[in-house]
């Protein structure tokens, strides 16, 4: 008898979910944010459909404010997987020059929340895979794997469909969409371990290196290029830093670290005393219910 490890069971579940979507959806798409969770999701998709290429495109809802290293890996992974890569930027946000320095929360709203809705509508995608995990945040813990959205992309936590066994109801009316989270039952440690075991390529920013940084509002920000306007008196300082999550670079704080290998990173993660999303400014809006409110409005 072969005893399956928890990682094997998680991978089997994720692959099963992806195949159900492909069998039942009209036009699925995979949201690809270039982070480590997206990397694992993409790797699982390639396994799920091998030797076929995954039968859906990758969609990157771009804000133009990602780290340069993220754009590089994104383009490389699209080439290697042979999948179509769609990059979508909200034209309104582009026209208005929305940026994280001058526009605060509007930056996330317009580029990400609105951008995602526009992209799904424009291409007529009816099901979108996302890499969210239930262990990330409290309101995610209650979300279904197949998360149903109304025609205007809203999430109603009181009207979720019961999800039994491994049976997913992918039926919907015209205009309605479903967000599907194949990594729902993975934890941060599972993700790292999978990356290590399967040699999944990830953005080098997850590993510590000496990088130019400034400290601002309690976050260590990396000066990725000239797009970060320095405030009076700010002088970039070289620090050995890495990132636990990757978002728009001015919104994502780095942590001081010497962890330059996967094992080091995992050790640091296990011994660390603060949770993963802490470095993200986005969850701090609207008190404790920040993410729940964003999700109801259509944020992924």
């Amino acid at each position: 008898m072969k005893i399956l490890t928890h990682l094997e069971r998680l991978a089997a579940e994720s692959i099963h979910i992806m195949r159900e979507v492909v069998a039942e959806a009209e036009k699925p798409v995979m949201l690809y944010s270039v982070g480590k969770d997206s990397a694992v999701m993409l790797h699982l998709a390639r396994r799920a459909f091998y030797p076929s290429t995954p039968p859906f495109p990758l969609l990157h809802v771009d804000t133009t404010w990602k780290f340069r290293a993220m754009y590089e890996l994104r383009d490389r992974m699209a080439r290697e997987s042979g999948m179509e890569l769609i990059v979508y930027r909200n034209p309104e946000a582009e026209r208005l020059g929305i940026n994280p320095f001058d526009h605060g929360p509007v930056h996330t709203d317009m580029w990400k929340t609105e951008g995602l809705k526009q992209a799904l509508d424009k291409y007529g995608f009816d099901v979108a895979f996302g890499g969210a995990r239930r262990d990330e945040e409290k309101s995610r813990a209650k979300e279904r794997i197949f998360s149903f959205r109304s025609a205007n992309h809203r999430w109603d936590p009181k009207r979720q469909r019961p999800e039994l066994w491994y049976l997913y109801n992918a039926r919907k009316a015209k205009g309605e969409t479903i967000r599907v989270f194949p990594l729902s039952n993975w934890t941060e440690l599972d993700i790292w371990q999978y990356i290590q075991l399967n040699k999944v390529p990830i953005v080098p920013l997850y590993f510590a290196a000496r990088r130019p940084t400034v400290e601002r509002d309690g976050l260590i920000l990396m000066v990725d290029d000239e797009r970060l306007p320095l405030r009076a008196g700010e002088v970039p300082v070289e620090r050995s830093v890495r990132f636990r999550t990757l978002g728009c670079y001015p919104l994502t704080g780095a942590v001081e670290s010497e962890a330059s290998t996967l094992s080091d990173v995992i050790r640091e993660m296990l011994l660390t005393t603060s949770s993963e999303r802490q470095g993200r400014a986005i969850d701090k809006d609207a008190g404790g219910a920040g993410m729940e409110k964003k999700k109801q409005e259509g944020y992924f």
Partner: protein
Amino acid sequence: MAGMAEGGRYQADALVAEDVEAYLDQHRHKTLLRFITCGSVDDGKSTLIGRLLYDSKMIFEDQLAALEADSKRVGTQGQELDFALLVDGLAAEREQGITIDVAYRFFATDKRKFIVADTPGHEQYTRNMVTGASTADLAVILVDARKGVLTQTRRHSYLAHLIGIRNVVLAVNKMDLISYDQATYEGIVEDYRVFSRSIGIDDFIAIPISGFRGDNITALSANMPWYSGHALLQHLETVEIDEAADQAKPFRMPVQWVNRPDLDFRGFSGLIASGTAKPGDRIRVLPSGRTTRIARIVTMEGDMDEAVAGESVTVTFVDEIDCSRGDVVAAADAPPQAADQFEASIVWMSDQEMLPGRPYWLKLATQTVTATVQHPKYQINVNTMEHLAAKTLELNAIGVVNLSTDQALVFEPYETNRRLGGFILIDKLSNATVAAGMLHFALRRAQNVHWQPIEVSRETHARLKNQKPAVLWFTGLSGAGKSTIANLVEKKLVRMNRHTFLLDGDNVRHGLNRDLGFTDADRVENIRRVGEVARLMADSGLIVITAFISPFRAEREMVRQMMMPGEFFEIHIDTPLFEAEARDVKGLYAKARRGELKNFTGIDSPYEPPEDPDIRIDTTKISPEEAAELIVSRLIP
């Protein structure tokens, strides 16, 4: 506070700091246990889960800081940490102080990774508990030591048993509040033993705990020296899961997707529901019954020598045989059955009651078919386990029913195989998941009642009458003019030497359907029977005219599906409500308005007008005579 967190925590940390590779290797070989916690509203479920997360170091300092602040602000434990706040996620429920939906939590120890489904104790949320239990290997039933076995305890135990959970833990919580009294604890365990036996739970493990104080959670507590079993976490780490049993069963793999990258490769992808597979194994594809051998088990990392239950794989066959989504690949010498009539347990999960006779989508493994459910044989009172007579099932009701499907389903009894015996029902209009079901067995009549071949064909009947059979299905509000126009149509057809028969709503209700009332469920059954009669008459070559309100689209569509293509005409006698009410030929609207007549279509029962009828008659524009003329000219151009 730091003292509360000892136990598993520092052990893991030492290994991580010292030798992370060794730690990772250990973690890599961990197995997975999924369990549910259930109990009454104040039994302390959330507190227990918060405690497990805290003790296994799944709570970080920033979360802890937030928890401390929240505990002071909205906590129910005074100045102490309120662990429940860690898991009571959604803003709405934080305000109400209750858990309102299934939430999933994760933690790990040195031996296992755990996924916990936190399910609520409220009566109106039975469906959430069933949902959480459907993927669980084990159930922790929480009982408040001060209250003992309550009605809800019985209900949760029954549901856990119904959904097939074999490992049950009775956690007698809040022992600190009864001064860790052994006699009280033993009294509760004895009560539970008597009850659990009565519902068929063969065995359970009882543990006295305090989630709030941490007694017997990660380690045995000094407060209860009289208890000699395992602490809760130890038990969860060591209890055997059903994996070995699943692998020992015959091979079954429901096909999810056919993998066809080019003409040279044709693979079948799915998750193995039971058994094992090796290249060379003889398999049978169901329902077709064709056999071949497995050629390869293909993965991105190279071909596999063996795959087992729980793995997602792609297999290829030695011979090119037909196989597609919904088929089941099974061991050739021990295949599952296929049938189209079953007995099943149903848990109803929708605000809209079950409508016997209405067609629903039924999804089982990768098969989706149309199913109709008959009137429940009985409903089960989940508090007393009594069998009650029932005409339908409402939200959170559980019953035993017979159901039939429009195509044969490949299945196994739920007791034998959860993945081939568990199903959901989906409403065809709203697409909501309305029920969960568990197949018991195929009804013998499905296997033994065959269609009697009839030697005089329907074509012969029709030829003899020198006409093309048809069903003219009139639908519309009461008083719209259905019967009037239908009678005129029949008279015209008879004058043209056509053989007809008029089935009128009121008349049928005096005979064939006199046992039916006017509830939604009865209306559905009314139409189903009339549809079947109309089909038999059409088979005999007749032109059948029916005049029924038939208010629901789903049933009219069901009748259309019963008939041969092109023989069904949906005719909407379109009279606005105010007009029909103004005419009120039988005085029924007046009665309904006075409240003397319940469930009257248009007043307190809905009418769903056809979206695209074959013929629409606007009675405000044309006379009944003109309408009849129009309908006949459409039938006989």
